[in-house]
């Protein structure tokens, strides 16, 4: 190893050190460049008239946010001088964190997580309703269902059974318990098991749970295999029961209220349009989720009424406190931005 070929080895070593140095410089440059890009993108504040403000909107890849994509496609946001970057997240908690840290200017967030956040003092505000439950139980898009061979026939049979929800201490727990109580079933008798939505059909099949509170597209797929609907919690609480919101941060309101007003106008317009053109709404679903068009055409869609039903939201908040999901329900003025459309 010592004699002969020293030049070749020296050459290889030099090559290696050059490569490493180059890689290092490239890495540092790339990280620096990416850092700058992100800063430029997330400022989102202070646009002069006629300028386009870039904003990031956090979403979940579910059909509830179809109006946002319809609005983007139809240019409603561009009309308000906004360029939307839809950022898919995995859970409501993640959306809350990202908004608080300034990573997102707006987000699609359920009423219950929003109420929990605001009651804890986080600087967030609801600016629009995102979706509600159905008018009638047979159209509801998140339903307690059982398998084909289940002995459960009726909502009263749910007493003492195990029901799967996607997250404990979330809207599922509130809606299910409130609905069961309204139907005369003791809400303390049921057991809730936390199972992510995609894994619910398998949990039902393997009998790890007796029933699942499943949304689309899993609802349609389980029903297609002979499953039966037992109870539609949101519809039991009331028609068009509030479910989700589009929310923003206090920081965004303080630095660029015009963009918030513009976003609110555009999203409300998008929801109206999507409600009148469900086919176009269904056409956007495969673009942001991996739900194939044939499935998107068959699933039940949420409703997208514009005005926030503050009475029902207050009631939802009270239910959430009753079932110990949140500590106290925030006042409507603290929760909802004054510029939001309420009824």
């Amino acid at each position: 190893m010592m004699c002969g070929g020293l030049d070749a080895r020296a050459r290889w070593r030099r090559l290696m050190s050059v490569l490493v140095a180059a890689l290092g410089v490239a890495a540092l440059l790339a990280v620096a460049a990416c850092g700058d890009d992100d800063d430029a993108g997330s400022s989102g504040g202070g646009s002069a008239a006629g300028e386009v403000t870039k904003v990031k909107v956090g979403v979940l890849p579910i059909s509830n946010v179809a109006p946002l994509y319809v609005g983007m496609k139809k240019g409603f946001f561009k009309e308000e001088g906004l360029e939307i970057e839809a950022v898919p997240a995995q859970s409501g908690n993640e959306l809350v964190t990202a908004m608080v840290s300034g990573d997102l200017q707006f987000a699609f967030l359920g009423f219950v997580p929003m109420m929990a956040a605001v009651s804890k003092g986080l600087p967030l505000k609801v600016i629009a309703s995102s979706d509600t439950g159905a008018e009638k139980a047979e159209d509801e898009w998140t339903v307690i269902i059982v398998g084909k061979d289940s002995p459960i026939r009726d909502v009263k049979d749910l007493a003492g059974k195990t029901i799967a929800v996607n997250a404990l201490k979330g809207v599922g727990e509130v809606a299910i318990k409130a609905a069961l109580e309204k139907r005369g079933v003791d809400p303390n008798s049921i057991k809730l098991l936390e199972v992510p939505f995609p894994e619910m059909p398998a949990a039902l099949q393997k009998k790890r749970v007796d029933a699942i509170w499943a949304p689309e597209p899993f609802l349609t797929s389980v029903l297609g295999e002979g499953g039966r609907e037992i109870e539609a919690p949101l519809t039991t609480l009331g028609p068009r029961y509030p479910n989700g919101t589009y929310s923003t941060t206090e920081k965004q309101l303080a630095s660029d209220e015009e963009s918030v007003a513009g976003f609110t106008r555009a999203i409300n317009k998008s929801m109206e349009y999507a409600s009148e053109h469900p086919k176009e709404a269904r056409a956007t679903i495969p673009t942001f989720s991996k739900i194939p068009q044939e499935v998107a055409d068959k699933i039940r869609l949420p409703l997208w009424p514009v005005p926030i039903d503050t009475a029902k939201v207050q009631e939802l908040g009270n239910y959430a406190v009753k079932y110990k999901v949140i500590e106290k329900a925030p006042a409507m003025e603290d929760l909802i931005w004054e510029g939001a459309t309420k009824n």
Partner: protein
Amino acid sequence: MATSAGAEISAGRRAPGWHRRVRDGSALLAPVAAVLVVLGLWELVVRAGVISETNIPPMTATVGELFSQLGEGDFWTAVGRTLEGWALGLGIAMVLGIPLGMLIGSSRWLFRAFRVPIEFLRPIPSVALIPLAVLIYGTGLESKVFLAAFASFWPMLIQTIYGVQDVDPVATDTAKSFGLSRLARVRHITLPSAVPYIATGVRISSAVSLILVVTAELVIGAAGLGREINTARSGGNLEVMYALILATGLLGYVLNLVTSAAERRVLRWHPSQREVAA
């Protein structure tokens, strides 16, 4: 066949090309056959209903979906994003790990001093740092690179330390007695001795970086293959989900081929790479 090759070589005529071709030919057969058996088993198990088709789609449907994904622009964008994170994570691990490793490895005192912090920090699973990463860096590229770099830094560092410590002391002493300066000793003795270890470190760190990048994408939602997998899962589209999982495995396999080939190239001069001489 082996005997005639041996006979040829011992007769003084070297036929290394022929020898290697035969070896590679039969060496290729076994892994390909194994893969086909596994794929066939998958198809059989699903079609026979042992595992329900609603839990995992049949192999033919999944592989078919994989091929159609290869034609989608979105798929390649996601692959690009994943590779971006992988390269940056590995790059940072190398840029920090190799020099630090050489420094710590070459000093008895430094090694003893840093041993405890290294052994303490090393087993921390990067996924446990996800909330921290999201808080500091958000849910984009930086978060994913931070996690990948953190995880792949440790194998890189440790391999480099071992490489430097494995230098033949006789060679070092000989170099000293030849009057080589410290820097020259590093260049001519330490580095060539450590390079095989460093190369192994790169291969390990590359795999770790890819795993963490895909995990971060899956859990945090940073753009890339992991996020696409999770989106498919949220939409109940099992065919796409498993096709993308296969794609991730294939990506890892390709990256491993690339780093192994690079390793062989760089270490061409090393005794371990030489063919057995007659």
